[in-house]
């Protein structure tokens, strides 16, 4: 089975230690987490993990099963890139003089639909959101000029299909 990119979405209770428990599932199988984002979800009191892995579908299914088995996990899904809308954000910190000395930089900012978020005497900061390859392209374009600092967030994504967490929780309260 071939390796692919998968986005794992986990809806869970917001509890201390759950991140450790979930990351341990990857550790046990020697699978690297390519990116991880944890945030509030659309449901009050429910957290959402977005985890990107590059592995086979069989392993992904296995991992999702193990994640969902954890007591404080409400539901876990996995999706291919085609099944989700996803983005990452990055910040580039670049020396201010380059903005004036290298006209090309302004074009790069414009062509990549990115914004300058701050300009200081010594440096300025560019923000960009987009898909991984778009960000990689922009990185490659800026690199020759010198990047002082670069940081990128984990992937965030929403699935095209409905996730029905609220329905699941309602079912719980109706049953009890």
């Amino acid at each position, binding site marked *: 089975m071939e390796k692919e990119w998968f986005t794992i979405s986990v809806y869970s*209770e*917001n*509890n201390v*230690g759950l991140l450790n428990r979930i990351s341990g599932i990857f550790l046990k199988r020697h699978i690297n987490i390519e990116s991880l984002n944890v945030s509030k979800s659309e449901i009050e009191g429910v957290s959402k993990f977005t985890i990107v892995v590059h592995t086979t579908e069989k392993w992904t*299914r296995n991992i999702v099963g193990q994640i*969902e088995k954890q*007591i*404080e996990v409400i539901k876990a899904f996995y999706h291919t890139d085609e099944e989700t809308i996803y983005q990452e954000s990055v910040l580039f910190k670049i020396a201010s003089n380059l903005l004036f000395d290298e006209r090309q930089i302004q074009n790069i900012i414009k062509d990549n639909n990115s914004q300058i978020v701050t300009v200081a005497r010594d440096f300025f900061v560019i923000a960009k959101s987009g898909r991984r390859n778009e960000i990689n392209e922009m990185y490659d374009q800026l690199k020759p000029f010198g990047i002082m600092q670069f940081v990128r967030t984990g992937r965030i994504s929403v699935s095209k299909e409905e996730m029905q967490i609220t329905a699941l929780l309602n079912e*719980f309260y109706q049953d*009890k």
Partner: protein
Amino acid sequence: METVKIKTEVNPKKTKMKISGAEAIIHCLLAEGVDLLYGYPGGAIMPVYDELYKFQDKLTHILTRHEQGATHAAQGYARVSGRVGVAMATSGPGATNLVTGLADAQIDSTPMVCITGQVTRHLLGSDAFQETDIIGISTPVTKWNYQITEASEIPEIMAKAFYIAKSGRPGPVLVDITKNAQIDEFDFSYEKCTAVRSYNPVPKPNVEAIEAAAKLINNAKKPLIVWGQGVILGKAEEELKALVEKSGVPAAWTIMGASALDNEHPLNVGMVGMHGNYGPNVLTNECDVLIAIGMRFDDRVTGSLDTYAKQAKVIHFEIDKAEINKNVHADVAVLGNSKETLGLLLPMLKENKHTAWHNEFKEKYKVEFEQVIKNDIHPTKEGLTMGEVIEQINIESEQKAVIVTDVGQHQMIGCRYAKFKQSKSNITSGGLGTMGFALPAAIGAKMGAMEREVVAIIGDGGYQMTIQELGVIFQHNVPVKIVVLNNEHLGMVRQWQELFFDRRYASTVMTNPDFVKIAEGYSIEARRVSTREDMKAAIKEMIASKNPYFLEVKVEQEDNVFPMIPSGASVSEVRLK
């Protein structure tokens, strides 16, 4: 925790009073029906021990000689009784010593609650004396764990701990309680936990899946059942028996499933796996429908997955959704509690007999008997075999004993040849393979079923890993029977060295102490035998004894366990010699 909504039932004896966290822990244990726990005191858990002292008329605490012993005793108790085993330890080394037992209980689905003391809240993260991150350490080997840092959390968390440990696929839960939470007072009231919103312990059976399973079974020409511990944990022994008898399907078991169906039931065709019986292993690759019930296709059961039952349609009855398609693809997956799902399946099955197919198992058994079993249990050579000792225990105990085994050759021989008439009678460390398990587990098993005979069968290697628990047997006069099958080697490793490492016996030869003297040091009646006649007499005497009894049997030093599926080979490649 505030985000976790727990629906509770009201305890009729619900009381409200201001008490310390430590006293609250005792009330929680009592409310959960606990009357016995195993543990070892120390600084960070002392407030709880102080309360145990006050409540000793209601709650018996057994001081094991090592915290690992406490976990295995709790496991033995849980496995034989079906109740939750409880173990307690202090912070730091006390807590880390629980890890092996937690891992064992996790992989063998044993309900256990472990309570650890922790340094006081304001010292957390300061590398205080006996501080260790037991939550971090125990996370991969627990079903759930939680650190309590405020007394008021105790009732809700303890209720949740017991509920999670015993519901669905059972497992170990660890609750770590900081010292301040044990000392502080709060208004105590207790409500049992009956549900957690993010946790679905028993999936609802899908009737369509059961119908599909019934259709496959009814049309099968060569069906085979392989059941595991899920039958025992689900209390589905009667349903299994009814299923086997109505469908006429030959049924084999994993070692964790042993004793769920009488060994002498005509359709019980024996054990599968690395040292299982010849017939069910080989015929796994000839059956047309494989009906797996409450088992998880462990590698010791399947051998190479690439060549495992590829010809068969697989039906998997399982409570844990994550086990479906984990190792073996299921053509039909039936989720749910085995008692419920088998109960629904039964009326859909046609009465049937598979005489010709069943005869294939009998033929294979004859081959195995001639080449292996005969020599194991009726040897003609002078030296004693492990198999004949087990056979003698079967005879003297009338197959009614709980057999607790450790890990290694004696374990495989024990599981192969011990005969059971009653469920929950085979207590062994199946998944983790924990040497040192048997002696403390036997103590727990005896305390969980005082009316039953409990015989621990242990190798000379594993025995010395937890030998200090003889102190518990001595102090509390626990009438367990201990049989050490002494071959002066780490036998199973030696066997692998002989077969796969050109007889390079690296660190497997043991120079052992005088085990009889050691037992006698604990005032345990002890005997050593090395002849057939003495062995038979000693086992008779041991079973007749009402007291703890230690028996060392000197067995052949270089016997091997067969049949054997070499690691990574196919079940069809099972070797008889």
